C-alpha cells in the first residue's frame, strides 16, 4: 500500500430497492486521512452508500474499492480494514459492555492480549471503563454510541464508516464524540461520517452533499459555504413568524428560514433595508437585523432548496 492510495474509490455505485433508486451512479474518491462528511436530508441515500462500502449491502451495479480491494469481489479483504457503525444501535442489549466488545473483537480474530490492552485503553478514553459490567441495553444514548465506536475500533481499522453516529445524542456527548474522532484523525485514520448536523459538518476536513441518491456538491466546508451567493442576515424579532412572512415577500430575498427564534434571510445583495421596511409596514417589531457569516446550516438550506428547484 502506498501513501497516495485513496481510502475509497467508488465507481458508478448504484443500489435500487424495487422501483426506488436509493443510490444512483455515485462515483467518489476519498483520500486517506481526514474526516469526510456525508451530508444530506433524510432519504438522500447516505446510509445505503455507507452500507455498500461496508460490504453489508450488495450494489445493484457499479463497484467500490476500499484500500484497493473490491467490496463486491473481495469483501473478506475489505472488512478487516474497516470499522462500520450502523445508524441503529447494533450491540447485544442483554450483554454487558465488556462482553459485547470481547465478542465482536474475538470474532474478528483479535488476540487475547490485544483485546485486554485495547479495550482497557478505549473504554478508559471514552469514560466507559466504570460501566464495563453494565448491560448495553441499559446505557444512555451517548454511552451506547461510544460503546459501538469502541467496538468498531477494537481491530484497529484504517477506515471508519460511521452512519449518523451522534443522532439522538445529547450535545455534550456529541462534542465528546467528535473529540474522539479528531483524535482518530490525528492517528492517521480515515473517517467517513454521515451526519444531519451542520455544526458537525463544519468539523469535517471535506464534505459531500447528497440528495436523492446522487452527490450534488463536494469540497471543503469553506468551498461549500462559498457556493451560497449573497449575504446572510439574522433578524431578531419578538414575533419571528410574522417577521418571516414579511421578509419572505421582499424582492431580492433568495430565501428566509426560521432558525430557532431567529429569522435567517438570504439576500442576493448586501442591503437589508428592504427587509426592515417590509417588517415596519407589516407592523412587526425588529430588535436587530445584522449580516452574519454564512455557515453550513445556511449552505445546507440553500443546497437543499436548489435540489428541490432542480
Amino acid at each position, binding site marked *: 500500500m502506498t501513501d497516495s492510495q485513496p481510502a475509497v474509490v467508488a465507481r458508478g455505485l448504484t443500489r435500487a430497492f424495487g422501483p426506488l433508486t436509493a443510490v444512483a451512479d455515485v462515483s467518489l474518491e476519498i483520500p486517506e486521512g481526514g474526516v469526510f462528511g456525508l451530508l444530506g436530508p433524510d432519504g438522500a441515500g447516505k446510509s445505503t452508500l455507507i452500507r455498500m462500502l461496508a460490504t*453489508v449491502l*450488495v450494489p445493484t451495479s457499479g463497484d467500490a474499492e476500499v484500500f484497493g480491494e473490491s467490496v463486491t469481489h473481495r469483501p*473478506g479483504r475489505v472488512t478487516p480494514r474497516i470499522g462500520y457503525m450502523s445508524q441503529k444501535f*447494533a*450491540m447485544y442489549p*442483554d450483554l454487558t459492555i465488556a462482553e459485547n466488545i470481547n*465478542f*465482536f473483537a474475538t*470474532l474478528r*480474530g483479535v488476540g487475547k492480549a490485544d483485546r485486554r490492552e485495547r479495550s482497557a485503553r478505549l473504554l478508559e478514553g471514552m469514560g466507559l471503563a466504570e460501566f464495563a459490567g453494565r448491560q448495553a441495553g441499559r446505557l444512555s444514548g451517548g454511552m451506547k454510541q461510544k460503546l459501538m465506536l469502541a467496538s468498531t475500533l477494537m481491530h484497529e481499522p484504517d477506515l471508519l464508516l460511521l452512519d449518523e453516529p451522534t443522532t439522538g445524542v445529547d450535545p455534550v456527548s456529541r462534542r465528546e464524540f467528535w473529540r474522539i474522532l479528531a483524535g482518530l484523525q490525528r492517528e492517521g485514520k480515515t473517517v467517513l461520517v454521515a451526519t444531519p448536523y451542520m455544526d458537525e459538518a463544519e468539523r469535517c476536513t471535506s464534505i459531500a452533499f447528497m440528495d436523492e441518491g446522487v452527490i450534488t456538491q463536494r469540497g471543503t466546508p469553506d468551498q461549500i459555504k462559498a457556493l451560497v451567493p449573497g449575504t446572510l442576515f439574522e433578524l431578531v424579532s419578538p414575533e419571528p413568524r410574522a417577521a418571516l412572512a414579511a421578509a419572505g415577500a421582499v424582492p431580492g430575498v433568495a430565501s428566509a428560514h426560521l432558525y430557532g427564534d431567529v429569522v435567517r434571510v438570504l439576500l442576493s445583495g448586501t442591503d437589508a433595508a428592504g427587509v426592515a421596511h417590509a417588517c415596519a409596514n407589516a407592523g412587526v417589531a425588529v430588535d436587530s437585523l445584522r449580516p452574519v457569516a454564512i455557515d453550513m446550516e445556511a449552505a445546507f438550506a440553500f443546497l437543499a432548496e436548489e435540489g428541490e428547484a432542480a
Partner: protein
Amino acid sequence: MSLKRIRLVMWKEFLQLRRDPLLLRAMFLMPILQLVFFGYVVAADVKNISIAVIDLDHSVASRQLEAEFASSDYFVITQHPATEAELQPLMDKGAVKAALVIPDGTSAALTRGEAAPIGVVVDGSESSSASIASGYAAQIVGEFNQRQIAASGMTIAAPGIDARIRVVFNPTLESINSMIPGLIAALLMISFGALMSQAVVKERESGTLEQMFVTPIKRNEYLIGKLTPYVVLAIAQVAVVAIIGMLWFKVPFYGSWWVVAVGLGLFLLTSVGLGLLISLVSHTRQQAQQTVMFLMIPQMVLSGFIFPVESMPAWIAPIANVIPLTHALVVLRGAFVKGSGFAALATPLWILAAFAVVIFGAAVVQMQRRLAE
C-alpha cells in the same frame, strides 16, 4: 469452518438465553403446566374408526353382524384379513384401530341356542378412541342379539352372542399413557416455535446481524453456533417432560429409546427448520410471534394430539397428514404404548425424514438469501 468462532457464537447465545426471562417460562415452566393440564383433562368423540373384520365363520349370521358394524356411523370396515395372525401388523402400523373376530362355529352355536363368543380387538394406544370404540362395539353386538332373539322367538334368557372385548397395547385404557408421549412432541414444537422464531429476527431487529457480516464469520458457522444451544435446551426439555411423565404419571414405556431418539431427532430438525424459516422471513419479532401462533394452533388441533384424526371430517385427514406433528405422534405413541419398532413405524419415520429434509433445507436456502438483505 472455524470451531473457535462457532464456540464463540454458542457462548454468546447461551449467555443471552440465560438472561432471557422468556426462556425459563417457555422451556420449562410452560411444559410442566401443560403436562399437568393435559395429564388430567382429556375428552374426545370418535367416529369412523377403521376396523378389520376377520370372518372365520362365513355364515349368514356372521355376514349380518358385519353388516351391522358397516352400517353404523362409528366404524368403517377397511380390511378383511383371512386370519388373526394377519391382524397384528395392521394394528402395529395403525391401519386399523379395532378388529371384529367372528370365530368358526358362531352360527352353529347360535342355532344350537348356545352362547357364541366373538372377539372385538381394540387398539388402546389411542385410549380415548379405544374406549369409545369398545363401547360402540358392545352396543352393536347387543342390538344384534336383540334382533336375533326377536327373529327366532326365543326367550330373553337365550344367550346369543357374547362379545369378548380385548384391548391390546394399553390394557387399562389409561389416556395419560398416550397423552404424555404426545405431549413430548407437542411441547417440543411449541416451545421451539416460540424460541427459534425469535432467534434470527431478534438479531436483525437489533442490528447485530449486520454487524456480524463485517466480521469474518461464515454463514454456516453462525448457523451452527446459533442453533446448538437451542438443540441442547430441547433435549433437556424432552428429558424433563419424559421423566415427570414416567415418574409422576407412571406412564409405562414398552418400546425402544432408539426409535424415540430417531423420531424426535427428525421432528426436532423439522421444528428448528420451521422456526428458523419464520425467523428469517419475518421483519420484526412481533411478526414472527404472530406467524408462530398462526401455525401452531391448527397443528395442535389437527394432528391428532387432542382430538383423534378419526373424529374429524374426511376432508381434514389429508391436512392432518401434511402436519409433521401427526407423524411424530404416531412414532412416539407407537414406541411408548405399543412398543413398536423401526419396522412397524417405518412409514411415519420416513415421512418425518422427508419433512426434516424439506423444511430444514428450505431454512438453509433462505439463510443464504435472506441474511444479506
